């Protein structure tokens, strides 16, 4: 399978503290949450504004738990690893493509995603079934071109999978605590104990004018 490339205008991520108990409830056996402190793991929300892909332009929101990467001597070290437990897209074509090719678990209806720029901040609002589910705001810091490797772990009824993903583009990354998340009481967020998720991100990443490239999917053996 060749590399699969998705061009984006903006991709914003917030990393939030939440209880390890909650992380373990979400994660399948065999995946370990990365802990910031004892008992505190990392919930991440990423919102993409894709402008170029096999399935056209679309928006995507990814809710993840940060997990231990699969590290192998002699191979490139990933910047971090994710377990996306819920992905939502604005188009059916994008959803079907991601389920079929990457085994990503999806919210099975189209969602609405809107971006709004306010000075040095960018907000993304996600709505499902006409109701808001999440609003993520990220601030910028300083911009540098990067090429980072990430790992994404997936598991469905057919098996367990690893996708090595390269994120390229201009990046701003910081821990200035300028962003915010608002998670609404909605079925979309049923996996999270909402009152236990910090609403200020300890880390904010904003990438723009870049590409997300998936290497061919790796099928993992699991016990």
């Amino acid at each position: 399978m060749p590399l699969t490339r998705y061009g984006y205008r903006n991709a914003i991520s917030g990393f939030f503290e939440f209880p390890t108990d909650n992380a373990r409830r979400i994660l399948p056996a065999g995946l370990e949450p990365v802990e910031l402190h004892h008992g505190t793991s990392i919930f991440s929300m990423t919102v993409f504004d894709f402008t170029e892909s096999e399935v056209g332009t679309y928006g995507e929101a990814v809710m993840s738990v940060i997990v231990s990467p699969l590290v192998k001597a002699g191979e490139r070290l990933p910047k971090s690893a994710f377990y996306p437990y819920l992905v939502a897209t604005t188009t059916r074509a994008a959803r079907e493509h991601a389920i079929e090719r990457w085994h990503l678990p999806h919210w099975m209806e189209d969602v609405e995603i809107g971006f709004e720029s306010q000075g040095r901040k960018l907000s993304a609002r996600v709505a499902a079934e006409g109701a808001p589910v999440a609003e993520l705001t990220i601030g910028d810091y300083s911009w540098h071109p990067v090429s980072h490797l990430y790992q994404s772990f997936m598991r469905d009824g057919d098996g367990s999978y690893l996708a090595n993903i390269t994120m390229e583009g201009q990046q701003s990354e910081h821990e200035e605590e300028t962003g915010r998340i608002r998670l609404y009481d909605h079925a979309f967020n049923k996996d999270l104990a909402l009152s236990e998720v910090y609403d200020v991100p300890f880390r904010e990443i904003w990438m723009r004018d870049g590409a997300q490239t998936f290497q061919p999917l790796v099928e993992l053996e699991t016990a």
Partner: protein
Amino acid sequence: MEAAHRKEERKSVFSDYDYSNFYYGAGDDPLNLLGPFREWYEEAKPNGYYLYSEPLSSAPTTHVQVRSGRTNEVHELLNLASYNYLGVSYRDEVKQAAIEALQKYGLGASGSPILSGTFDIHEELAREVAAFKAKEAAILFPTGYSANVGFISSIMRSGDTIFCDQYSHASIVDGAILAKSKTVFFRHNNPMDLERKLGGVRGKKLVVVEGVYSMDGDVCVLPEIVEVARRHGARVLIDEAHSTFLFGPNGRGVAEHFGLDKEVDFHLGTFSKSLGGQGGFVCGSRELIDYVNAFGRSRFFSCNLAPPIVAGLRAGLRIVEEEPELRTKLWSNVAYLRRRFAEEGIDIGKSTSQVMPVLVNNDAKVFAVAEKIQERGLYLQPVTYPAVPKHKSRLRISVSAAHTEEQLEQAVGIIAGVLREEGICR
């Protein structure tokens, strides 16, 4: 062309990663992180990480001889990196006491404190430190780290809840892990967030704070913390590692400074900071200390403090009691340095203590700044992520009563000069 590309790729590996990327690795072999870490570290060291663990070949006075990790040459540098806040560890009476104890007792305690390792001078030091802190009793630990680990795990259990400031020292976190209690972190020095976290939690609750936070030098807002904890039925432990012997009318610490000595339940301190020695202690009621003696595993499964150290600490404690002017001099030095940094436009964050972070706020530049400062004759250590948040990199200053104003002025001149050259201050 390809070689140049590979070189560029390696360079990006160094700048994109740090220690935090090597905590976790999937797979079955616990050694699978060694190769990737070595590969990264071989790049990191010449890029600035050589500044860590440079060996000293002299006492940690106001000047030290430091062997460069880059050139292997030994340089004499003005020292604002060592704790030794009162400058007592190298005083003649301290060294003489240690020498005499070495002659009398030999090198080590040769046993656990609950078996054959307790000597008369251990009991005397415990009595003296309890008297200094105006508490009924005290118990000694081999290090400050083991004091937190041993004390917290001796009183808290599975099913209990420990509330720690998010900037808590690793020894507090590790104590909570060993206690197997649920651990909840509240926003740094934020009683409102503590209140939110405490709400609705049942069972035994312990709130842990530090008198002075070691990376930022800010002082705990203890009155508000104690008030919130009391309202929710939680006990309070204060770690006064960086504040015992310094704060308060009698030097007992931040709890005394706020007049809350009796309201705080557990008082922990170390001998390695203000006294420049080694060891930790907990003070409290006799029954508390007897309980910790029975359940503080980090203590009784370690050899007791070495007698020469204990004797030196006793001499140091006597100096602190007899020479309160040392504290006066320290605070005078702190005020001088704060004023001069403000005049020079140097950002030291929220520090109000003898611990001062010179904020560089540039993770890529902090090592170059530290190297330049060292080349100009000042010994300081860079602190970067993950010890502090990304882009909050800094140089950490420890002010001592032993510093003269001339030495502090020399330090300000070096720091301001380098920060200006690097565009970090005006």
